[in-house]
């Protein structure tokens, strides 16, 4: 049994089936990239794994650390070690970022200051969460919150969208700390699934495998850099021939 095992997952949103039988495995300490055109179901997959309301699992299962989590609430899943970075995080008037970080922090109090400095958010700690934040500031705030949580499974929904190049590198610095990228793969304990449209994040975070999702199905998997190149060159429509069966089998065998 792998760290995260998704089997025949069907998910509906407002009565409409979006995911139509997803199978996906992720090993401990691994990072997976998910590619897919708009509307293919990438964000729905993130919502279903994290347990956000509105994503109804109609068939199949999600197993995390050996436990079927598909009936657990969003906060129970979070406490089990799942952390989500929202594509569009909401603003919460009245709740200061620092107050939330202090609530989440399970490390030393100095870590808040250290990580806020790393993400250039020191001046934002006393501000209400995401109120008046730019797109890039919101994404950095997401990473800062996740650095307090230190989840075992990181779900990143387009972490670089709306972020300038300079800040992508700052965000990646934070993510690399969570994912222990300075450690050899065998020692890493945290895994990640990253949705990306632009692929920019791949320049900063090394991923182990890429999946392509279209129309609610996983089309196939392969080496992240190669798949990204092919999609960029030929688009998603020709991607059905871009998968490396051997690569995927080796990946699964290594889990």
């Amino acid at each position: 049994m792998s760290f995260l095992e998704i089997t025949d997952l069907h998910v509906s949103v407002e009565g409409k089936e979006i995911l139509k039988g997803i199978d996906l495995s992720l090993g401990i300490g691994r990072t997976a990239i998910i590619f897919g055109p708009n509307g293919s179901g990438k964000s729905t997959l993130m919502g279903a794994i994290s347990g956000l309301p509105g994503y109804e699992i109609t068939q199949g299962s999600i197993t995390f650390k050996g436990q079927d989590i598909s009936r657990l609430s969003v906060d129970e899943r979070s406490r089990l070690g799942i952390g989500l970075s929202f594509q569009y995080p909401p603003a919460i008037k009245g709740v200061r970022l620092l107050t939330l970080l202090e609530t989440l922090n399970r490390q030393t109090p100095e870590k808040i200051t250290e990580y806020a400095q790393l993400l250039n958010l020191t001046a934002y700690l006393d501000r209400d969460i995401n109120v008046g934040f730019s797109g890039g500031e919101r994404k950095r705030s997401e990473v800062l919150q996740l650095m307090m949580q230190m989840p075992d499974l990181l779900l990143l929904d387009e972490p670089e969208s709306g972020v300038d190049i300079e800040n992508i590198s700052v965000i990646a610095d934070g993510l690399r700390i969570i994912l222990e990228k300075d450690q050899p793969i065998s020692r890493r304990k945290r895994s990640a699934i990253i949705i990306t449209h632009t692929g920019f994040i791949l320049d900063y975070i090394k991923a182990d495998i890429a999946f392509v999702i279209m129309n609610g199905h996983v089309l196939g998997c392969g080496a992240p850099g190669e798949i990204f190149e092919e999609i960029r060159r030929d688009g998603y429509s020709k991607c059905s021939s871009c998968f490396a069966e051997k690569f995927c089998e080796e990946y699964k065998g290594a889990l």
Partner: protein
Amino acid sequence: MNTVQIDTGRLNEIGYNSCVASCGSFMVLDHTVMESHCNIEGLVVLPLKQAFDTYPHVREKLFFNVVPRDSSDTTLQAAEKEPVGYYVFVEPGIRIEEPLQAAFLFGETGSHQFIHNIIELGEGAELNIVNGCTTATHGRSGTHIGITETYLGKNAHLGYTMIHNWGHDMEVFPVGAVSVGEGARYISNYVGMTEVRKIVTNPAAYVETGGSARFYSVIFSKGDSYFDTGARVLLKGKDASGEIISRVVSEGGTVISRQLLSGERAGSFGHMECSGLLLNENGVIHSIPELRGAHPDINLAHEAAVGKISREELSYLMTRGLTEEQARALIIRGFLDIKIEGLPDKVQSFMDEIISRSVEGSI
């Protein structure tokens, strides 16, 4: 001092503790002044009746002046009674950092308490007053009528904090008006966190040239409480400014929240924000923001919103591992969190503590 009848637990809840360092203190139990202390030169704290004898202008010029005797049935009723309350005066140029504490304790079930306070600050004087009103544990029901007339000299500054902690069978009618002199600043904070049968209050500030008046209120309505509260800021002079911020959380009862900003001379500037949060279907929040402009060169604006806690915000916090209850408490606490510029840390942290206690007790 009659220590037998004074309920120290209830007094602590409204921030009154005669042992805590403060510039002075004043306490009334039912109709009797129990304590009247002043520890600082340049500050006068006296029972109003005594002040009438010592300072004739108090009766002649300040008593029933900014609050007219015939302004309502409540004031007419009060005018017939012997005045019980304080006269506070700060000499010109005297700035006092430690807050003055005042408490009005209600103990006699079924009776009517009439209070009349007068505050006068000389030119450039500064003071903070924390007023707490509470019912003793044995005083279950009754009526409290409290009139407060405030006169701020040129460039004076008054922070006036009112904490209500009445018993749930009380009816309370505070009447207040403030004359804000040239360049003077008035800040009012109102905190109402406990269940009460009825509170009706709508204080007014008349602001002269370059002066400012700011009213902040946080109300947590529970049970069958009825609050009809508000504030009126009448910008009479040039470049006068006003701000009214009201936050109401309801898990029951009715809250009518009235605000009026009126600009009458060039350069008037005012901002108003009334926000209501309904936690369930048991309560009603009726927000009535009003703007009145009587000069083209003014800038008055308001924002008002009444709604529930957003599901999206709750889910967001829950993805961080907070339970629904914890997420709700964080949002409600944040909603009621008003950081007030110019308020001493001691008063602000006490207000924060009362609000936190009330939210935790509710969730």
